[in-house]
């Protein structure tokens, strides 16, 4: 079962998407976790999280984006321009982060040079950057517009009923993912971080119904599975978006196991459930704005820190990898504060800057991971300790 999910996670147009398309289903790509899949689903469409995997060139990405833009949207643009995304019938871009929102224009422009590579339904929605009453209200209105444009374009209706049904379906998926987390958090972990990542990615790359079905099987199987964590250090991955299983593989090869993450494409989407009682659009707007741990919500660092601390405790994390894609402002800068605060709490951290895209710099990455593993093995920090050397020495440093 995990093998099937890996297949789905490693290929853009995977078997499930092909099957969906074969039956005449329509697919809508979306750029960021702030777009409720529920709405797309309720419109009878397959929501597909945009990704940039398997690029071997940037010749299209670089001719629209600038040299200082993050490689994730560039890779997506590259794939789009190459025609790898022609299976999409629609795409929704938001102002997630600056580089990502510029994908909207770049893709639109690229399609003038590379004809037929822009989905017919192509929309930009504006997600507020704070979660207060008036921004929730504002976003609700944006979501209403989204419903409207989907209905008009795909000639469907999104009723309150269908929305509620989708919400409850996706809530079920979230609950199962939380269950998976519980297994990963236990002393004996039955699943490698690499496999867990495959599951998390697959959640947004296939019909949710199918995903739930398979995940139920996976969880059942894992209940009886032997531990794969014996004697390994437990790591958590934080920072920029990462859907690269090879990257997790390199980390785990150094003798670690990744038991938790806070990254986009990873476990950013299911820490809380959407309220099923109130008005669905309001519930979605409020859920997506209030439960995200993405630093694009500026001014909520403290909330995120306490979430992360909680996760570290629950997952018995020995060390944290704070990685960011080069030119990722949001995570690049937040990682700096996280490093300070987590180290002060006695949690060893390692910062790592990398490129999104095919993992070829394994040598350098694994050298660092090795060193980090050596550091936490000798250090043997446990979360209970309050002040570490790091915290104490900070006062004395220049």
């Amino acid at each position: 079962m995990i093998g099937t999910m890996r297949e789905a996670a490693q290929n853009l147009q995977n078997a499930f998407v092909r099957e969906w398309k074969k039956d005449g289903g329509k697919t809508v790509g979306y750029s960021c976790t702030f777009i409720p899949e529920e709405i797309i689903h309720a419109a009878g469409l397959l929501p597909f999280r945009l990704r940039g995997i398997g690029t071997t060139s940037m010749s299209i990405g670089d001719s629209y984006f600038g040299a200082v833009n993050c490689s994730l949207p560039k890779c997506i643009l590259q794939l789009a321009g190459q025609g790898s995304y022609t299976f999409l019938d629609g795409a929704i871009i938001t102002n997630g982060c600056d580089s990502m929102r510029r994908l909207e224009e770049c893709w639109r422009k690229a399609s003038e040079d590379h004809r037929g590579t822009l989905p017919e339904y192509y929309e930009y929605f504006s997600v507020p950057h704070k979660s207060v009453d008036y921004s929730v209200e504002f976003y609700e209105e944006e979501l209403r517009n989204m419903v409207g444009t989907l209905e008009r374009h795909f000639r469907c209706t999104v009723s309150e009923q269908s929305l509620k049904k989708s919400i409850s379906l996706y809530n079920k998926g979230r609950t199962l993912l939380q269950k998976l987390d519980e297994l990963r958090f236990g002393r004996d972990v039955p699943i490698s971080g690499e496999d867990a990542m495959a599951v998390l990615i697959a959640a947004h790359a296939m019909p949710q119904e199918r995903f739930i079905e398979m995940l139920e099987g996976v969880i059942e199987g894992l209940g009886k599975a032997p531990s794969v964590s014996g004697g390994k250090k437990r790591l958590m991955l934080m920072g920029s978006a990462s859907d690269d299983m090879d990257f997790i593989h390199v980390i785990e090869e150094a003798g670690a196991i990744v038991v938790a993450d806070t990254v986009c494409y990873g476990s950013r989407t299911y820490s809380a459930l959407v309220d099923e009682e109130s008005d669905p659009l309001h519930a979605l707007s409020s859920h997506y704005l209030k439960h995200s741990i993405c630093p694009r919500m500026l001014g909520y660092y403290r909330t995120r820190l306490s979430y992360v601390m909680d996760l570290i405790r629950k997952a018995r994390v020995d060390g944290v990898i704070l990685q960011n894609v080069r030119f990722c402002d949001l995570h690049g800068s937040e990682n700096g504060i996280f490093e300070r605060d987590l180290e002060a709490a006695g949690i060893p951290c390692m910062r790592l800057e990398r490129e999104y895209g095919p993992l070829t710099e394994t040598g350098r990455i694994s050298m660092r991971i090795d060193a980090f593993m050596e550091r936490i093995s000798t250090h043997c920090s446990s979360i209970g300790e309050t002040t570490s050397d790091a915290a104490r020495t900070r006062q004395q440093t220049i």
Partner: protein
Amino acid sequence: MIAAGCDVGSLTTKAVILNNARLLGHALVRSSFNPEKSASEVMEKALASARLTMDDISLCVGTGYGRERIGFVKKTVSEISCHAKGAHFLQPSIRTIIDIGGQDCKAIRLDAKGEIVKFITNDKCASGTGRFLEVMAKLLGLELGELGRISGQATHPITLASTCTVWAQAEVIMHLNEGMPKADLAAGINEAMAARVAILARSVGIEQDVCMTGGVAKNPGVVEAMEKQLGVPMRRLRLDPQLMGALGAAVFARERLGVS
């Protein structure tokens, strides 16, 4: 029991042989494209200098970029840990290490027990690595060793505007053509190097004693520029700083063997 460490770096390969705390032999060769070959070559040389054979070595630990490919090595440790180990072994008061090798540079902070508290490595661009200096030395027609010594004679060090190694090269050529004295150029180059690395070093948090390791530590121009930049003295080590990684590896091997 005799322990050895072998460090297959991007530019040079180093080996150190230890008997307890006593240094029996060491060697350094230029890395070839075949790390296995470089490793055996350097090991042979080190063994020869210690008048030993491979059979005398109870354990050899490998480190460096090519560490996974050394045939005679049973265990590998990352360079970061090895530099820390080696420096702490020689000088327990060391708290901050700045290691500049051929292809990267690292800042490492240790606690009193010699354990790593934090480290940062640079990996964005070749400026700020030993390679930068090599390119420049070649340009000036100087030996690597001279680049550091001659910069002491500078009166008006130049300022390099470009950070890119390749463009900086063009800039230096321009100054050369203007007839600028080599000492001033060398000093400017060393200062540029120190300035770039100092940022890295400061972000790990400088705590005294500070030392430099890696090949670039043999360049007194950079070491002095670094002292100026950071405003702290660089502690000189009792052994060739370029050997630090190999020494650390040997110390690891020795610990592994249960010698304390």
